[in-house]
């Protein structure tokens, strides 16, 4: 059984069909990448999988670990082991990063029938993960993402992923706005989390991140459909030739 099985997923926003029948399967232990031009539906796919309720799913089915993902609320999907690293992490003034992370971890532990973790056990664990991402301790006491730099926000997303240890992590344009040093650190953080039980879906416009997080499979999403799939070499080809070959109409022939 695949960890993630997307069958003919169709999503509408207002009168536009953004996803026009997406099919995708991922197994535990695999890293896939979805690449595509702006407006192809990459972020919509990521958000729908994380169960954002503002999108209207008009058809298809998604099984996550054998369960009907589309019937889940966002918090249920998270508790079942799905994680979305946001393209635009949200600032939440008034809630400290550490408190937020512990609340999230304990919500998930509670769902799984585990005991909640107290601050005494939580903080040392958190400090260790911070080191992995070369993050400053001070970020823990600051409000969630408030006045974080772009790079700090993206690292903070990966920190959350490291703490919550999902079965499936979706990284939505985590590379956008990162300089090369920050990109390396983020990629190292992600690579450290690769293991046979976990799948990672890297959504990106550019190939650069895939130099550091090498995927098993690459899919090209154009106009709401996956028009081509292949190995990591496909990413290099796209970098070289661009998405021009898949412009309007080209999708039909794929």
């Amino acid at each position, binding site marked *: 059984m695949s960890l993630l099985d997307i069958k003919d997923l169709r999503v509408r926003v207002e009168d536009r069909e953004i996803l026009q029948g997406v099919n995708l399967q991922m197994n535990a232990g695999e890293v896939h990448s979805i690449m595509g031009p702006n407006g192809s539906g990459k972020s919509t796919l990521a958000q729908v999988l994380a169960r*954002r*309720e*503002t999108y209207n799913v008009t058809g298809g089915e998604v099984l996550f670990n054998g369960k009907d993902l589309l019937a889940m609320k966002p*918090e249920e999907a998270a508790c079942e082991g799905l994680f979305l690293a946001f393209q635009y992490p949200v600032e939440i003034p*008034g*809630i400290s990063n550490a408190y*937020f992370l512990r609340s999230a971890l304990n919500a998930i532990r509670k769902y799984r029938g585990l005991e909640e973790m107290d601050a005494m056990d939580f903080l040392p664990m958190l400090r260790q993960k911070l080191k992995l991402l070369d993050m400053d301790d001070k970020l823990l006491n600051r409000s969630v993402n408030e006045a974080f730099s772009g790079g700090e926000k993206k690292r903070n997303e990966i920190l959350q992923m490291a703490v919550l240890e999902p079965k499936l992590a979706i990284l939505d344009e985590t590379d956008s706005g990162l300089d090369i040093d920050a990109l390396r650190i983020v990629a190292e953080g992600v690579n450290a989390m690769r293991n046979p039980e976990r799948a990672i879906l890297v959504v990106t416009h550019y190939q650069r991140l895939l130099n550091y997080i090498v995927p098993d499979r690459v899919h090209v999403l154009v106009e709401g459909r996956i028009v081509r799939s292949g190995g990591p070499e496909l990413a290099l080809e796209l970098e070289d030739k661009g998405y021009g070959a898949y412009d309007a109409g080209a999708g039909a022939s794929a």
Partner: protein
Amino acid sequence: MGSDRVAAASQAIAKYAESFGGFQKSAPGHELSWLRKLRQDGFVRFSEVGFPTTRDEDWRFTNPGAIAQVPFRLVRNGHSLPSQKDIDRFRMPGAGSQLVFVDGRFAPGLSLVGKLPAGVTVSNLAAEIARNPEAIEKHLGHYLNMQRDAFGALNTAFLEDGAYVHVAKGVVLEAPVAILFVSTEQDSPAVNHPRNLIVAEENSQATIVEDYVSLGGGQALCNTVTELVAADHSVISHYMIEREHTGAFNVSTLRIQQGRTADVSSHSVLLGGALVRNNVHPVLGGEGGECLINGLFIGNGRQHLDNYMLVEHASPHCGSRQFYNGILDGHAHGVFHGRIIVHKDAQKTDAKQTNRNLLLSDSAQIDTKPQLEIYADDVKCTHGATIGQMEENSLFYLRSRGIDEMSARRLLLVAFASECMDRMKEGPVRTHVEKLIHDHAFRLAAASLGRVA
């Protein structure tokens, strides 16, 4: 106003007149001529002006008609006191002293006065009027402006009891003084008029907490006045917590008189009450004074919570900062009316005012009104107000991390309120307030999801 409503209001005033005669003869200290005169002046002033109406600029957003029309009866002798157990659940842990007033009158059996440093008096006004009338006469009624405040005049007419705190020169009172005002359920609409006097002499320090609660329901009006004297170089924190039942009326006035370089913080937390009007009126009367006016109001159902500030800069080089955050759900109506007067000689005034509001429903309403009157020419005054809703983005972000919707809502409410809580000094009062806010946010989050908490 319709003619029957006018009639109801004048009947209500007649009712106050009826009880005033008897009250004046038997009230504590009735034999003291200055006190008799003070009460008489209060009553005369109240009779002249009656209750304000929305035509009065200071009451534009709050109609006191609901209060004016009810024939409230003064709660006097003869009812049984609540038990310790009834009161214990309201107590603030960590307070040095706890004075308890039941329907406006001191309840010594329920009060706990801890060990106090030399030079500190924590007592009740009625007792101090008997014991030490000169000390009371020196301050009582000297600061409240009865001319502009009918409720203050009414309070003065019926002033009888309340807290009295005196901190001598140079004394630091570390543990907060908690004053609990309990309204009990009566057979008919009941009114009480607590009157508090807090005098902090030069270079002293203290924290005072007024906490208003109810036992049972019933129509009630608590009309309270606190005069707070912060002499030169004193550091005073004052808290007002309103958490009566949502059918109660509460009108309160805090009049602060600040000396040179006195540093006063006023914190208001309005959670309960049907119609609440909270007046905070500091006068920065000495050079270099600082005043923080911090507030949080959270309303639901049909609650009406009105925050009225009158900040008077009467001396040069003073600073005042007003920060109020409001959260309104259901049909609740909030008011922030921040008036700043900078007198002619108050050069180098630095006055700031911010009001942020979170509206959780389409029918919740906020009126926010800055009013700056500046008669000096070298001053800095800024004001700003925002109104927003709970961000879907933030909710989704929290939920996407496994936090259920209700908890996510509660977290965001607490986060919004935390701006105000962070301005309170860490310690027992802040812990007390934080607990109240967390519990309240929980109920609000549950209610907004249509669940019963």
